[in-house]
């Protein structure tokens, strides 16, 4: 029988960072859902007075969230779907916070739209998706499996899309590709074809000459106008014949990011830096067509009149993602909302009938609410003390116990915390946790602890090598700091055994050597510094065996080749450096997966080209096969 272990997360004073990359409001206007670059989804309560408070933060994704959308009709089930940069998709119940379904697909979605036609479709509905792939994907809303694609004559990525639903015309899907081609697919009449996996192509396609199209919206009030927003201008087309009715360009230095239809002949357009503009489209009557080919035909045109605008306060942070929720049913509001990289949500309540000021100039709509996670944290009444707060002095009223790294050693029940000011606290882990959460007693002076002073600034990483590998001396505790030093401590006496001074910027990672190393390497650890260098430190001999400094990109993976005493470093740009630990030379530098450059510093001899293949999962394997490699010579001055 499986035993489930409930986990409790207790938050401190500082809210976790939540860099908003996607934002939506649920149909009942009670919940705001935000997705972040960190991969978390945050649920916020929205009160009827438009007050925001944070409710829950959902963990699960491992990459930045790209989009959010509803995944069912909200009255039936309060489900929201999220998608990330690495293809993960999750369906969440936003009332309970549970993950209903998840998957990982080889597709990166830019946006998802829920579609369901209850009298024609069985099942829970479809998610119509587009992104960094061709055309439109149809994904089952319940199982998250790919059902089908809507293809086109000249397939390409789609930039924006909207579902056209009206009583008069059948449901269609209108999209604009990255090359500015508008495509329209029949949805209602294609339902059977889609369900039978037949090829479904667009029924219409027209080149709009609109590059960087950001949004396309169908006006359900007039059932005639089509709003197309691109980064430099927005345009209104007649949906019946796709004739262009008006164009409005943005101010220099500004960039449009999206828009929505507010009412018949009324639009809201927003920019990528958080501003928005509300226009009324005034009919300028019939005038001569702008297209000479139409001859003397009189065409109706409209021109925009700016009614209102919104502004953002000064403490804004880029980038912005914005959206608009348009509810026609009272008592719901028309809300313009934005989420920022700093984690701030801002709401504007757009009046039902926006009007300009008395003298006709545009009127500013003020911000209704603005809120962040930190605001929610600051409001909390009961605040748990930090786990080692009781051990630190209060200097000038500010605690110094900002813990910047920590490690728990189960065998010794020691909790080691490294702090912002360079101090390292060692205390009993379970005892402290128990006293903190269960007995609620003041701990000052009750529990034994040690304070290690050695770093002059922030402690960035900690490592207890013996914890995972008994080959290491059980008294060794390693700490890395912002001061670019690695200190080897005796954890029992608190004495410094050795200090390695690396002069490479802050130490970012400490790693013990893997088990397949030569016997002599059970005293060796690796550390990575902020200048992307890797230092191999021998703790017993107290020397640095190798400081590999030539990496241009952050280090992603480190492996050892025990047979030849090589350090293999894989970097974020898919380059691989193979270092000889004894000599400190680079034996091989490989760029890309199939190509090779051999570097033999200080020697001009031509070496046999070995075919180096590697995968990110397994590290590097050297395979020897003679071949004439096509050399892609991208050498820079640093590799001489």
């Amino acid at each position, binding site marked *: 029988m499986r035993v489930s272990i409930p986990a409790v997360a207790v938050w401190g004073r500082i809210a976790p960072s939540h860099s908003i990359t996607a934002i939506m409001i649920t149909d009942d206007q009670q919940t705001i859902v935000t997705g972040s670059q960190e991969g978390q989804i945050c649920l916020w309560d929205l009160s009827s007075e438009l007050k925001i408070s944070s409710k829950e933060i959902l963990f699960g994704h491992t990459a930045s969230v790209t989009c959010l959308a509803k995944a069912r009709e909200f009255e039936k089930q309060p489900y929201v779907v999220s998608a990330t940069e690495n293809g993960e998709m999750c369906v969440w119940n936003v009332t309970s916070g549970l993950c209903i379904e998840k998957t990982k697909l080889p597709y990166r979605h830019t946006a998802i739209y829920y579609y369901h036609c209850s009298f024609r479709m069985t099942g829970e509905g479809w998610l119509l998706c587009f992104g960094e*792939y061709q055309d439109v994907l149809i994904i089952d809303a319940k199982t998250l499996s790919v059902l089908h694609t809507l293809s086109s004559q000249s397939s390409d990525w789609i930039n924006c899309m909207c579902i056209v639903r009206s009583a008069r015309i059948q449901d269609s899907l209108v999209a604009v590709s990255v*090359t500015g081609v508008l495509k329209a697919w029949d949805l209602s009449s294609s339902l059977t074809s889609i369900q039978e996996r037949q090829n479904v192509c667009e029924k219409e396609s027209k080149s709009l000459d609109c590059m960087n199209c950001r949004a396309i919206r169908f006006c359900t009030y007039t059932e005639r106008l089509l709003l197309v927003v691109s*980064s430099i201008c927005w345009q209104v087309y007649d949906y019946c014949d796709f004739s262009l009715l008006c164009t409005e360009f943005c101010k220099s230095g500004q960039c449009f990011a999206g828009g929505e239809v507010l009412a018949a002949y009324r639009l809201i357009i927003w920019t990528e830096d958080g501003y928005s503009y509300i226009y009324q489209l005034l009919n300028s009557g019939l005038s001569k067509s702008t297209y000479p080919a139409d001859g003397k035909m009189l065409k109706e045109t409209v021109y925009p009149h700016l009614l209102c605008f919104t502004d953002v306060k000064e403490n804004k942070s880029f980038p912005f993602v914005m959206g608009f929720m348009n509810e026609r049913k009272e008592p719901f509001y028309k809300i313009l909302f934005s989420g920022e990289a700093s984690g701030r949500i801002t709401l504007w309540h757009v009046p039902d009938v926006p009007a300009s000021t008395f003298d006709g100039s545009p009127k500013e709509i003020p911000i209704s609410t603005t809120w962040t996670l930190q605001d929610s944290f600051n409001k909390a009444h009961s605040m748990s003390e930090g786990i080692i707060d009781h051990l630190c002095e209060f200097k000038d009223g500010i605690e110094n116990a900002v813990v910047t790294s920590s490690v728990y050693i189960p065998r010794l029940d020691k909790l080691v915390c490294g702090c912002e000011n360079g101090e390292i606290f060692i205390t009993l882990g379970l005892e402290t946790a128990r006293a903190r959460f269960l007995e609620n007693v003041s701990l000052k002076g009750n529990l034994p602890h040690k304070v290690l002073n050695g770093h002059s600034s922030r402690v960035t990483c900690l490592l207890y090598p013996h914890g995972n590998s008994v080959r290491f001396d059980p008294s060794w505790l390693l700490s890395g700091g912002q001061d670019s030093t690695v200190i080897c401590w005796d954890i029992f006496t608190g004495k410094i055994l050795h200090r390695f001074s690396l002069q490479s910027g802050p130490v970012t990672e400490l790693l013990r050597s893997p088990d397949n190393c030569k016997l002599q390497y059970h005293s060796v650890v690796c550390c990575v510094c902020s200048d992307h260098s890797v230092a191999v430190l021998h703790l017993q001999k107290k020397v640095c065996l190798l400081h590999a400094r030539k990496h*241009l990109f952050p280090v992603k993976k480190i492996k050892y080749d025990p047979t030849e005493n090589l350090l293999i470093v894989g970097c974020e740009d898919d380059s691989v450096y193979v270092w000889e630990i004894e000599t400190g030379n680079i034996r091989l530098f490989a760029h*890309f997966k199939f190509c090779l450059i051999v570097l033999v510093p200080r020697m001009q001899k031509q070496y046999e080209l070995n075919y180096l293949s590697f995968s990110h999962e397994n590290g590097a394997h050297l395979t020897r096969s003679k071949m004439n490699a*096509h050399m892609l010579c991208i050498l*820079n001055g640093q590799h001489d």
Partner: protein
Amino acid sequence: RGAGAVQSRVRAAAEEEFKWLLQEEVHAVLKQLQDILKEASHRFALPAGGSEGAAKQESFVLSVAGMDQVKGVLTLQGDALCQADLNLKMPRSNQLLHFAFREDKQWKLQQIQDARNHVNQAIYLLMNRDVNYHFKTGSEVLKLMDAVMLQLSRARNRLTTPAILTLPEIASSGLTKMFSPALPPDILVNFYINLNKLCLTVYQLHALQPSTTKNFKPAGGSILHNPGAMFEFGNQRYEVSHVHKMECVVPWLNDALVFFTVSLQLCQQLKDKISVFSSYWNYKPY
């Protein structure tokens, strides 16, 4: 205290230098990046708008060394092959076979299309970030560089990572229906981009009889399948008896890859410069 005064002077100097970095150096690097990426984008010859202004056509001869009779002349127009002229000599039959794309047919090379779109995405991110734009925080620059680098890495990966396909997937790809005369059922063709090369693989198959003594083990996905690989397709089992692999360097793909690499290095160097300042004080991103 003396130490405190020194520390605040060092900090003031660091802040001045950081301000200079955000106002001057960042814009210089972004300008350089924009120039390089525009060059890269031109290599992909994206047509001006829709289907007007067709990209120029370039023909490439792909052959196997020492076998003059086996070759393909492929014509690349932007992201699609608009003509493929294949001359194949199959070992068993000793005939010389000739196939070409049907008049109206084009084969889109999705790797090129995706790479082109990623480059344009990177360019779009840098739009409106010229000298007139004021970066307020280092974090803003870092986020911008991360977003640009992500697109450039993806662009490069699309060219360096051909699709891993199973033989049934190659057989059902629709490529077989593009040729005139129609490809015989015992020949499979696959096109892909590998780094800076346009590659063509031709597989000759022989049908496995149900009575065969061979142990049938379907081959998994691969970029290139070897003779002996087996698969089942349309109720018939096959074994690959011969593989022709032909490739040709496409110079503009080579240029594009160099541009991607140089751009990535520029971005990383700028990120590293900004990160140095985060160690001066308690770096709060917002």
